């Protein structure tokens, strides 16, 4: 089917866009593949930005999704530092920031998300205030930290990125304070037991995590900042990192007439309402058959798996996206692995492994159906949980929480 006249254009060359390009070749696409990304850096892994990459002296080259050669070998035309400005779905063209127009046979929107910058007075004029989403953000944060003698860091937002950044900055010798507006950290994504665990973990490691801290304004004298909260408390900061969530990059799709919801709605093959346009990764709003609802995910798993589905569909294979979401987070010596979606749970069971402090798992149920598992330093709980969520077998809850029962699916089936 495909021939050299055909061109698949991909907007965004990160986890979703890059994996799509390589998957397309694997599926046998013979036409051109043209990737565009505003970011001038060779596409890299994002998760390490707040974790190992932030604390190491590695250059970004150690962290690439694919080597520079791989794009050439697979005949993938990678255009970095070039933004797509408009999509015209009536004549299948896009225009780019360098003034060119390109025709597409198929278009893939993999524009992901950008950090949400809250409208806090004084934020725009604060010194050394950065979000953390790109390699350039990490360079800015590190440079500011190195240049500071007092190394006082305030992190606004106690989500995964904020907490990982806190742990990493602490490792770099900073004095770190995390300010979270809600009553508990990670409130949107985990159960209270997990929030408490991470709160304690950070305290043990000398990082102050404060909740119910609504940042009201920031003042700056050009060298240092004071972060003011609504309750009157103040925190001096040499460096401020903002991690309060994201905004999905949907403007291009919107202007092209694609209807939007919480992201860009797509069908089971990642197609938008326009038959030649796909949307994948953080920007897509898709149906998850396992949970029977539409969701938008921010994870590597979703970006990679949806990329593979879209690639197969572009090559005219009959495919349907049906995977179980998973995610991880690394803070200090703790590895958290999550599988499933816990939203809607009405019961939680905690299994603590004997004699091991930071090794336990939290099992989220709706009635007797297992929805999700959060596993702390416990890959076994993660894989066993995955199997039960996928298979749907009822689980013996008494045995599950008994650490003397060996963690094997066969032992836990009713």
């Amino acid at each position, binding site marked *: 089917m495909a021939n050299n006249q055909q061109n698949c254009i991909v907007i965004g060359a990160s986890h979703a866009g890059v994996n799509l390009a390589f998957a397309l070749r694997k599926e046998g696409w013979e036409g051109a593949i043209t990737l565009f990304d505003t970011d001038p850096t060779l596409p890299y892994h994002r998760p390490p930005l707040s974790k190992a990459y932030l604390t190491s002296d590695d250059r970004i080259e150690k962290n690439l999704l694919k*080597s520079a050669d*791989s794009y050439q070998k697979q005949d993938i035309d990678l255009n970095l530092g070039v933004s797509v400005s408009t999509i015209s779905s009536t004549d299948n063209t896009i225009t780019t920031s360098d003034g060119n127009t390109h025709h597409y046979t198929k278009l893939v929107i993999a524009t992901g998300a950008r950090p949400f910058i809250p409208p806090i007075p004084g934020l725009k004029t604060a010194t050394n205030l950065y979000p953390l989403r790109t390699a350039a953000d990490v360079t800015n944060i590190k440079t500011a930290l190195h240049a500071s003698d007092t190394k006082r860091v305030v992190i606004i937002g106690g989500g995964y990125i904020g907490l990982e950044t806190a742990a990493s900055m602490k490792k770099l010798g900073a004095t770190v304070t995390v300010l979270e507006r809600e009553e508990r950290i990670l409130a949107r994504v985990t159960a209270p037991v997990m929030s408490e665990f991470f709160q304690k973990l950070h305290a043990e490691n000398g990082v102050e995590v404060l909740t119910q801290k609504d940042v009201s304004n920031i003042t700056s004298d050009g060298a240092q900042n004071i972060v003011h909260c609504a309750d009157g408390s103040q925190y001096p900061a040499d460096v401020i990192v903002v991690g309060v969530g994201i905004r999905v990059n949907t403007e291009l799709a919107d202007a092209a007439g694609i209807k939007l919801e919480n992201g860009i709605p797509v069908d089971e093959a990642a197609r938008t309402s326009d038959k030649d346009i796909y949307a994948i990764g953080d920007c897509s709003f898709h149906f998850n058959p396992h949970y029977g609802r539409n969701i938008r995910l921010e994870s590597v798993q979703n970006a990679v798996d949806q990329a593979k589905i879209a690639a197969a569909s572009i090559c005219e294979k009959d495919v349907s996206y049906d995977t179980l979401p998973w995610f991880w987070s690394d803070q200090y010596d703790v590895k958290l692995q999550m599988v499933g979606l816990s939203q809607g749970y009405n019961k939680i069971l905690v299994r603590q492994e004997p004699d091991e402090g930071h090794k336990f798992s939290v099992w989220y149920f709706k009635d007797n159906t297992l929805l999700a598992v959060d596993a702390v330093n416990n*890959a076994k709980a*993660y894989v066993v949980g995955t199997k039960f969520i996928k298979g749907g077998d009822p689980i013996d809850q008494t045995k599950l929480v008994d650490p003397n029962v060996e963690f094997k*699916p066969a032992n836990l089936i009713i």
Partner: protein
Amino acid sequence: MAKITFITTDDENITLEADSGSVMALAVENGVQGIDGDCGGVCSCATCHVHVKPEHMSKTGDASEIEQDMLELDDNVNEFSRLCCQIEITEDLDGLELTVAG
């Protein structure tokens, strides 16, 4: 320098040379089919699963607890399984042969 050979699921033999970094990073850099390294090498994705040639297990050592746990319910797991993001390249690995588990 260590020479490491990957045998892919399509029976392709690829021999690569390196003196540092992880085996996963070497494979990804050279586009070895079946080694994706989606999590960037932190033992979270299991997309870097290889089988070490049995007589080469002494070079690589056994899988760590987290590797074993991650692979426990994998259909392709065997006693020679490793997640190759956890294998650091040193000269001792010279001559190592790995089959991509796919």
